[in-house]
């Protein structure tokens, strides 16, 4: 082509390009109006007025008595505001100083961690401690005599001139800066307060402090109440299937409209299939759509000012609720309903309602993290993944929870206990209603209700449901191990203890885990071998290889375990690999005992690794803490053909270990094979039949056609062949309506697990989507949406308020949320 031709083409292209730009400019929608400023509200705390030093009146002022502020920076006694007293313990060496949080806090951010009494030392490097005191004073509503610390405030300008030397001036960074001083209460003089942990449930409407992103970092943070007022939980248990109704009440206490965002847990086996939004007397049933579609609808409704709610799944046990355009003073309730199967352990049925999501550790580069987001952080959400806001330990939200459970066990209930104080009311010969004793319970601990039914032997049972239209049948089979297993002796084991030593385990959880291992070591027999592996950022182990369980080795191992401390992130994958990758001793049965709280963001990656590496080993996972990641622990055990157990902070580690070793001291019934007889069975989950351990049933669900009658189960225990027969129970009970959904939920869980190892995860995602839509279940790819299109609220979509959660009981804020 000639140059002239090139010029022609160029001119044509340019013309078209310009035309395209003109068309595009004409079609671009106007930019949305700028967001309205953060609502300002009244604070729930009244900050004490700055003291006036020199005024020794009882009402106000600070006075100094006794010693003086000198070059040695010793402060004796200062009365501030007539209430706070700084007392000198005469120790100028700061030996009584209690270390504050180990990590320095960024400038402008208050610190966390232990606050103790200081022997009069005020130094620049006490900034962290002083900052903690500042925070405590701002947050504490009442300073009572029972408290271990009292706080006061002293402005630099109020320090007596005589005491304000050049060095004193160096203590205070700015003339008008407020300075917080810690003082010990007179009643507990001599005892240093080392912790500000408050385990007791609080009351009242505390607020969460959210930084106003439009102000300078040094500006005072804005305090706003939290929108979630109350959660009402009503559960009905029939057999081993429970139907649970959860209502979340959102209220807008501000002068402007808001969007409420709330992350909450549900049991990982929960099949969520109902969603109703209630505004006043009006109830709007939501619809289930593909997740992207539902999010799009919600975004549009929100932008246009309509009240809408969206429920999304982030993990199998972590969900979020968003409610848009809640007008000032208004309330919107969201009700969800789900089915799930109870777990059965060692003679006890267990109903769990999780109440709080523990702060997760997300390994670097993890694709879909769940961040732990402090209420001190600026109100801007992290760029990727989901983020859950956490209250500081001394903060409380106004959210309380009420739980009631109606149990129809079908037989007498012999015993019952719960994680909270409960009230039991018999409603029939075999039925009981259980409610929380206190209506104002703070939900920072999972609700666990365990009950034991009468009768020595629990029979295996199968529940069925048949669709009258299609003839499609669904079953759930609970298989209990045969009694003969108890009489058989186990083979030698190669025990591998794996203990989580990350920051979230700091304190009581680690103590419990260590106690469990120490007890476990005592249960080993002479022919056994063992190994102890600890992990946090890295993994390390007791010995180069498993060692014989003799007296010397056990003593050395106990010493090793006692010295373990908690610090750092949760690189669980390193611990897992170290536990499973070394050569297996074929003459011994490898048992991996995993002790962790499961607070990680890469659950799926971990489960994928378990599936890849477990081989002939068995994994038993122990959840240690008050609100552990049950989804991860149950799935690890399931993939590892073992079992999960839970060690609460108040439980006896010795008792739990006794039960555990009782279970593994008898061989499992392995190599299970089913004889379905008259049933044509398909799509059973788990696809690989689990081993049967003493005290632990296996639950199998599947589809069938034909007639449901009895089924046979054959397997081996060591060298012995065993068989069971299970009869089908054709109950006419409403609970069987749940069986297809329970099956669908298991199918979705299985597909999701397989995604980790699949080369084509998108294909499995499509199957999950279709299954979830067909059975009307929430999943990672389907969400519930409800829009009230009768009324369009004025203005833009308002301010987004993230419901801050309490850190689970026993978990240290400073090593999880507060740590960088």
């Amino acid at each position, binding site marked *: 082509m000639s140059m002239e031709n090139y010029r022609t083409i160029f001119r044509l292209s340019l013309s078209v390009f310009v035309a395209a730009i003109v068309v595009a400019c004409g079609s671009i929608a106007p930019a949305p109006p700028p967001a309205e400023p953060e609502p300002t509200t009244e604070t729930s705390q009244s900050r004490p007025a700055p003291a006036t030093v020199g005024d020794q009146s009882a009402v106000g002022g600070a006075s100094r008595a006794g010693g003086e502020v000198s070059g040695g920076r010793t402060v004796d006694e200062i009365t501030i505001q007539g209430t706070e007293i700084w007392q000198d313990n005469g120790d100028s060496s700061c030996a009584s100083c209690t270390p504050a949080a180990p990590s320095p806090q960024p400038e402008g951010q208050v610190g966390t961690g232990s606050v103790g009494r200081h022997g009069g030392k005020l130094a620049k490097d006490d900034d962290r401690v002083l900052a903690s005191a500042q925070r405590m004073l701002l947050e504490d509503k009442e300073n009572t005599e029972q408290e271990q610390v009292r706080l006061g405030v002293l402005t630099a300008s109020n320090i007596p001139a005589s005491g304000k030397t050049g060095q004193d001036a160096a203590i205070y960074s700015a003339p008008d800066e407020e300075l917080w001083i810690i003082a010990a209460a007179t009643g507990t003089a001599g005892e240093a307060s080392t912790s500000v942990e408050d385990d007791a449930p609080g009351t009242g409407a505390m607020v969460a402090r959210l930084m106003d992103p439009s102000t300078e970092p040094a500006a005072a943070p804005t305090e706003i109440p939290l929108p979630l007022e109350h959660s009402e939980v009503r559960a009905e248990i029939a057999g081993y299937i429970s139907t649970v109704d959860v209502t979340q009440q959102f209220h807008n206490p501000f002068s402007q409209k808001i969007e409420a965002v709330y992350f909450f847990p549900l049991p990982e086996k929960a099949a969520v299939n109902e969603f109703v939004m209630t505004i006043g007397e009006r*109830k*709007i049933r939501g619809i289930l759509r593909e997740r992207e579609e539902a999010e799009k609808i919600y975004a549009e409704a929100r932008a246009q000012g309509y009240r809408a709610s969206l429920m999304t799944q982030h993990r199998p046990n972590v969900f979020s609720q968003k409610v848009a355009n809640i007008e000032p003073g208004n309330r919107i309730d969201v009700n969800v309903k789900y089915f799930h199967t109870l777990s059965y352990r060692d003679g006890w049925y267990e109903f769990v309602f999780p109440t709080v999501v523990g702060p997760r550790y997300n390994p670097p580069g993890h694709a879909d993290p769940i961040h732990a987001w402090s209420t001190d952080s600026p109100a801007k959400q992290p760029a990727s993944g989901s983020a859950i806001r956490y209250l500081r330990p001394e903060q409380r939200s106004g959210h309380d929870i009420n739980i009631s459970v109606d149990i129809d066990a079908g037989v007498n209930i012999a015993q019952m206990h719960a994680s909270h104080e409960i009230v039991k009311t018999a409603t029939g010969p075999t039925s009981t209603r259980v409610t929380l004793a206190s209506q104002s319970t703070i939900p920072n601990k999972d609700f666990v209700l365990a009950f034991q039914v009468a009768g020595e032997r629990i029979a295996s049972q199968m529940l069925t449901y048949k669709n009258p239209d299609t003839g499609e049948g669904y079953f759930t089979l609970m298989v209990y191990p045969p009694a003969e297993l108890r009489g058989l002796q186990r083979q030698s084991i190669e025990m591998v203890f794996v203990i989580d030593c990350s920051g979230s385990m700091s304190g009581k959880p680690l103590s419990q885990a260590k106690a469990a291992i120490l007890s476990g070591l005592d249960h080993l027999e002479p022919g056994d071998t063992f190994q102890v592996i600890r992990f946090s950022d890295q993994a390390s182990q007791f010995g180069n290889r498993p060692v014989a369980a003799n007296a010397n080795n056990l003593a050395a191992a106990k010493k090793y375990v006692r010295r373990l401390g908690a610090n750092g992130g949760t690189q669980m994958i390193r611990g897992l690999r170290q536990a499973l990758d070394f050569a297996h001793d074929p003459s011994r049965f490898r048992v991996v005992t995993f002790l962790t709280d499961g607070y990680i963001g890469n659950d799926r990656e971990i489960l994928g690794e378990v599936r890849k590496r477990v081989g002939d080993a068995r994994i038993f996972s122990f959840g240690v803490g008050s609100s552990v990641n049950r989804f991860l622990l149950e799935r690890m055990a399931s993939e590892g053909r073992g079992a999960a157990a839970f060690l609460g902070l108040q439980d006896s580690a010795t008792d739990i270990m006794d039960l555990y070793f009782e279970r593994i001291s008898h061989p499992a019934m392995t190599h299970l094979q089913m004889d379905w007889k008259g049933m044509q069975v398909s799509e059973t989950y788990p696809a690989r039949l689990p081993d049967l351990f003493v005290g632990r049933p296996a639950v199998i669900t599947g589809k069938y056609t034909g007639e449901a009658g009895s089924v046979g189960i054959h397997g081996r225990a060591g060298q012995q062949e065993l068989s069971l027969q299970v009869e089908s129970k054709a109950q006419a009970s409403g609970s069987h309506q749940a069986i297809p959904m329970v099956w669908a939920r298991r199918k979705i869980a299985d597909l999701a697990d397989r995604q980790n190892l699949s080369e084509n995860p998108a294909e499995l995602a499509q199957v999950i989507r279709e299954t979830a839509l067909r059975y009307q279940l929430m999943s990672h790819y389907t969400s519930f949406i409800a829009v009230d299109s009768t009324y369009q609220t004025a203005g833009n979509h308002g301010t987004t308020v993230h419901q801050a959660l309490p850190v689970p009981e026993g978990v240290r804020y400073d090593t999880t949320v507060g740590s960088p």
Partner: protein
Amino acid sequence: MRRQAAMVFLCLIANTLAYAETLSAPQTRFAAVDVYLDSGDKALAAWQFELADHDARIQVVGIESGEHPAFDEPPHYDRDAVAAGKADRVAVADFSLATAGELPKGQTRIATVHVRIEGDTPPDYHIALIAAGDTQGQPIPAKISISKR
């Protein structure tokens, strides 16, 4: 040469049109369709209707209960169709086991269907009453109507 220039020009036009189309995607809005049933002097215990949009531009985003306490729970609807995004129609039904004195008579709002609409043109709604019954389960004559918000 002219042929080549024309091909380039057409390609550019096609790209421009495609781009313009994405920018001028139909606007969406939300609306509510109140469904009323007039059962005259008979107590209304059960009802069933079908709401359709012959232009198939609506998506159901919520089904609301009626105004009378006897029908204060959200009614039943075809979940599969709604979940699958079938946008042309929805079937809704409900009943109450309350006594005649506790049931509505005359005109009452039995449900509200909340919809999302694509485009500016109003949907072409059609409402059809499938069944209405009294406390004995006997069919009763009733008039159905809708009101758009």
